[in-house]
């Protein structure tokens, strides 16, 4: 039985194979029947719009059906049941579980107690492998994942998408450039791990001079609660905002990504530029999640 818990469990070949499968699904958009007659539980113990809906869409496009729990209030967890028990019980109703949970490591625990495959749809500040895979997929739609320069911008300390993407990219020959406000830099332990894995990581204070070098800009949300007051949040937010002016002089074929939702990190005027790929990236959630579901069935 196969589970998908963390991008760290994937080697480069497995990532490539899954992205190729997503590409094949994308190229032949007719409804597939891989999950015909199968039921998937979407256990979402934390708010989510995109991830939950795109998993539901992915199951449906594979011919399967879903049962959804989308809040703690409406579940046995609110009565004090452990996640281990919930997962054991739900396993007996369905053929696979897609889990989002506020605690880090929740999906790992679920995989130990479930009798059906578990797919991690985000566990707290921890792993969110489907997001990472769709990020990689979107980059690969535009360029090979080799020899490219990728700028990670924004809150790199707490942003799990940036952590997982950086780790996954260390399977490839890429140069990572990090641009983050003071105190929100990539954690030192992660930088050390990336170096151990042979990845080049360069830290920068300002993106402007870096723009002509970058093939990909991956912007992440800077959260208001990370700052002591509104003024410092506003100041930092402004200096990490992607605008058409900032992007002047960018490489041909450069793309801008964002895991969404955005909170002002990307000027809406960028939406009309050819480099804006974040809505395409969100759309890619469906074929990538279809590929992940096929992988565990």
């Amino acid at each position, binding site marked *: 039985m196969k589970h998908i818990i963390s991008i760290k469990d994937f080697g480069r070949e497995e990532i490539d194979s899954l992205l190729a499968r997503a590409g094949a699904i994308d190229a032949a958009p007719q409804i597939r029947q891989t999950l015909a007659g199968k039921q998937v539980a979407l256990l979402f113990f934390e708010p989510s719009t995109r991830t939950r809906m795109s998993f539901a869409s992915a199951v449906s496009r594979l011919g399967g059906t879903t049962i959804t729990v989308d809040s703690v209030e409406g579940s046995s967890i609110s009565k004090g049941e452990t996640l281990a028990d919930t997962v054991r019980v739900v396993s007996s109703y369905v053929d696979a579980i897609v889990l989002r949970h506020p605690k*880090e*490591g929740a999906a790992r625990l679920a995989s130990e107690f479930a009798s059906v495959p578990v797919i991690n749809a985000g566990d707290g500040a921890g792993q969110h492998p489907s997001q990472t895979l769709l990020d990689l997929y979107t980059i690969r739609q535009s360029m090979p994942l080799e020899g490219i320069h990728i700028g990670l911008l924004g809150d790199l300390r707490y942003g799990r998408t940036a952590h997982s993407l950086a780790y996954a990219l260390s399977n490839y020959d890429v140069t990572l450039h990090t641009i983050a406000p003071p105190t929100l830099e990539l954690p030192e332990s992660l930088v050390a791990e990336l170096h151990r894995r042979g990845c080049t990581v360069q830290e920068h204070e300002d993106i402007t001079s870096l723009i002509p070098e970058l093939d990909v800009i991956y912007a992440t949300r800077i959260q208001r609660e990370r700052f002591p007051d509104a003024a410092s949040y506003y100041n930092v937010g402004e200096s990490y905002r992607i605008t058409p002016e900032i992007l002047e002089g960018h490489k041909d074929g450069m793309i801008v990504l964002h895991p969404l939702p955005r909170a002002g990190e990307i000027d809406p005027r960028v939406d009309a530029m050819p480099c804006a790929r974040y809505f395409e990236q969100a759309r890619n959630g469906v074929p990538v999640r279809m590929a992940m579901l096929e992988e565990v069935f």
Partner: protein
Amino acid sequence: MKDKPQGLLISPIKDGTVIDHIRAGAALTVLRVLGITGQTDEELSIATNVTSMTGGQEGRKDIVKVSKRELLKEEVDRIALISPHATINIIRDYIVVEKKGVEIPKHLSGIVRCTNAGCITNANEPIKSSFEVTEAGLHCLYCDTVITTDIESHII
């Protein structure tokens, strides 16, 4: 002036365990992780900051003698995290029947509490914490937190 009295600071035990070469000052932590408190009934002898013949930390070490108790592997693993150079001597009828060093195992299950409050192992779930021992520190296999400092105070 009389000579300083020579001899053992603490007397031998008949049956039990002598934990020797504990890092100077760490004996009380060893007792804590063994669950030995003022409420338990073990016969104990503790020596702290005594001269170590083998050097140790500035020539000092701690010793703990626990009567009528032979340590389990899990307990020895905990001691290894506190004092990797400690030795365990099992005593039966005043004779050392087994003498061994301690070694930090590659995997620690249920021995250290994860420092990440958001880790599922700190929730009310029927699982034990799980760490792999790496060069960088203790790596939580559930949430990926790496504990690099003050491991002692997180021993369960």
